[in-house]
């Protein structure tokens, strides 16, 4: 067990964990931030997507020992009042069905728009290909990203 200091959503947290514990379980089990979800544990579904220094990563596949000083943002810290353009567009288009994959989708889409404020349809599809939605909300996700990119 080691001690780690993490910068999470603008706050500093101390946690004790083995160095190989994936960031996902640190977030969910040790920090009790439940918005980041577990879907596969193998970087195959995107449910666990968070930002490290603004870059979307799959937290299930990054050990805590690799995080260092990088700033971690989870869905809870994406915007001050849940007012991120994507969160608004997601509501406007009523994207979610079960909702479980959606926080990962939004975090991934937020990183996409950060890099590419007006992505084409094909760019959206490629950027979002790592995020699975078993309920089948891909069309509305795409529309919501397009709406947000125009706002």
């Amino acid at each position, binding site marked *: 067990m080691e001690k780690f200091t993490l910068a999470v959503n603008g706050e500093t947290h101390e946690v004790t964990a083995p160095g190989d514990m994936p960031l996902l379980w640190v977030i969910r089990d040790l920090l009790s931030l439940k918005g980041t979800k577990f879907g596969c544990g193998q970087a195959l579904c995107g449910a666990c997507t968070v930002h490290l220094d603004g870059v979307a990563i799959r937290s299930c596949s990054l050990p805590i020992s690799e995080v260092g000083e990088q700033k971690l943002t989870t869905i809870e810290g994406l915007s001050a009042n849940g007012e991120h353009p994507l969160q608004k567009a997601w509501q406007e288009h009523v994207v979610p069905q079960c909702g479980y994959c959606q926080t990962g989708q939004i975090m991934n889409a937020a990183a996409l728009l950060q890099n590419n404020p007006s992505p084409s349809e094909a760019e959206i*599809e490629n950027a979002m290909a790592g995020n699975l939605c078993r309920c*089948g*909300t891909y069309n*509305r996700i795409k529309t919501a990203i397009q709406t947000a990119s125009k706002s």
Partner: protein
Amino acid sequence: MLMIPKLSFLPFKKFTNKSKVFRPSRREFLKLGSLATGGFMLGVNFQCSGPKGETLTFAPNAYLSINGDNQVTIIAHRSEMGTGIRTSLPMIVADELGADWKSVKIEQAVGDEATYGDQNTDGSYSIRMFFEPMRRAGATARHMLMEAAGKKWDVDPSGCDTRNGQVIHAASGQQVDFSDLLDLLQDMEIPDQETLKLRKLSDYKLIGKDVPIYDVKDIVHGKALFGADMDLPGQQIAVIQRSPAVGAKVVNYSEDKALEVPGVNQVVKISGNGAHPGLNKPLEGIAVIADNTWAAIKGRAALQVEWDLGENKDYQCAAQMEDMIRETLGDGKLRREKGDVKTALGSAGKVLEKTYRAPYYAHATIEPPAALAHYKEDGTIEIWAPTQHPQWARDSVAEALELDAANVRVNVTLLGGGFGRKSKPDYVVEAALLSRAIKKPVRVQWTREDDIHHDFYHSHSAQRIKAGLDAQGNLIAWNHHTVFPAIGGTSSADELHPSDGEMGLGCTDFPYDVANIRIESHEAKAHTRIGWLRSVSNIHHAFAISSMLDEIAELRGMDPVEHILSLLGEDRKLSFNEEMEGEYPNYGEDIAAYPWDTGRMKRVIERVSAEANWSKSIQEGKAMGFAAHKSFLTYVACIVEVSRDENGKITIPEVHYAVDCGIAVNTDRIRSQFEGGAQFASSLAMSSAINFENGQVKQNNFDSYQIIRMPQAPKQIYTHIIESQEKPTGVGEPPVPPYIPALCNALYKLNGKRIYELPVKEAFV
């Protein structure tokens, strides 16, 4: 010994069970409701907790209450797994009541049949079963509020109306908040349910409109809580190594290495229930119990377990598939007969004979199964679980722990997908057993590998269809052989044929006007746990039937849409019963009340063909395919367009659905179910398959069990909803069956190659 609702959850079993655990029919519900005692209508229930009675709460039935702050709270008693039911049923109550929807609070019910009626969220029947009761729940309160206002103002109550949380009297211009009538309501009787007046359809403000889901804000803010998100102080996390093949037994195990993992505290064995373990029992396994999920996962990896793989150790699904196909060559068990197929085929000018195969599928809900249980010192247990069937979970826990069900409380969280998987409470029972064993709250967490390896699978299947055309090219004979390990085989080695229920899912309810029909099933043994997956055996039956009909249309030189319209014949109401061996369950509804109406099917076909511009000549490199299929009493027709680019890559630019589901309740959620259904069915058609070798599943995670990703999804999905005043029916499952053959028929037109086996991976590489 507790009564386990063995059959009640099956959407397709013959609904003859009259026991208490069985879902009430619409009629039973109303009867109970009209008694206004016990059961669903609890009688006027006032709770005065404030000193001046200011927190008086009016609860005319189990589904709704109004408090002194004019807060309307509506109970969602069915499980939310993505269909929107947690919004759509309460919104019916609110609309009828005249509540202010924006301020309505929705609370999730615990599993309790005596109070809420059926809570088995399955079989696309929430809306079908509860549209009327929800209207009545709202109307009961509305009627009483109007009576009270009539008294207050000394006016005729029938001149009042309710809107936005107020009673209004248009003639005098008076209005009053519901909460200001609570005093007057105390002396009032529950109105007679038989004569209760409901609003006219045209009077509704929410029903028939796009209503956003209640939880959308929480979901996008990361605040929505699913089963895996539940925590209790002092809880432990359990990850379990389960039988690699169903029926495998632990011979020996060593926990030493697991206990060396920091954070791992205990190892507990769970006993299995043999090679046909049933639908609500855990598999044999060794549970590693730890402070957190990662420690439990690592601890499990360190376990050393020696298994006796048991009677399924030599099971190869590929070999069983060959056996099943051979079976279909002979005579099977007769399930429906009309005319004389053998003679007709003998005299036919042309006979077409085709065999269709479909694989095992896993549900792969994006939230793997999880459940939190807290066994308390007083011998009661409380559960938090993403379950489709909290009542069965409750009874199953009670049975496993030998408790009275009254001592088991099941709280229902949001479900990260269900599709039938989370009807089965095996994972809930695991958590309950472990919590009792270690005397602490335990959350069981399945990994994705656990989920893929230990599902209740959609059965693999083989089907052979022989069709005979006479000299004029008329279709005169239809002989359908179907074989697949049945759901019943999960519980019993003797269940070798599909039940009448499974046969009635798109096979024996063949609606086309053919003079000679013979439908047969064949024996197949279950070597794994078979369950039900979104639309169940409609998946493979619709694939075979609608693919075959497309091929017959071509042979007859007919347009596929015209062909189906002509086979449906005159507008008629079918009941099949005299032709069935056994019974036609009709999804649990009386066939007289819900007949198979060929006219309604023809209207959806005409609509989809017009909307998709079916008859237009289509450009090079594109093609459309068509199929129509009724399931769960909802009529659906589907046209899928496929396109091939210069590199040979195939995409799906457009999908059109037309649906007649009777009265459309929440149009946005109807569309979202069709959008999702098309994408779900795309995975079944294009990319998913489970294989067994030596009794064990070969796939592990989303790399080997593939579901479609955004680039493969249909680009546009249009859902055309037929305006209807018919009784409403569900839409969770009906989008799936016709999509698959419509896609296959489109691919044939594009590539010239008929598809007889799912999934059709090669077409999309």
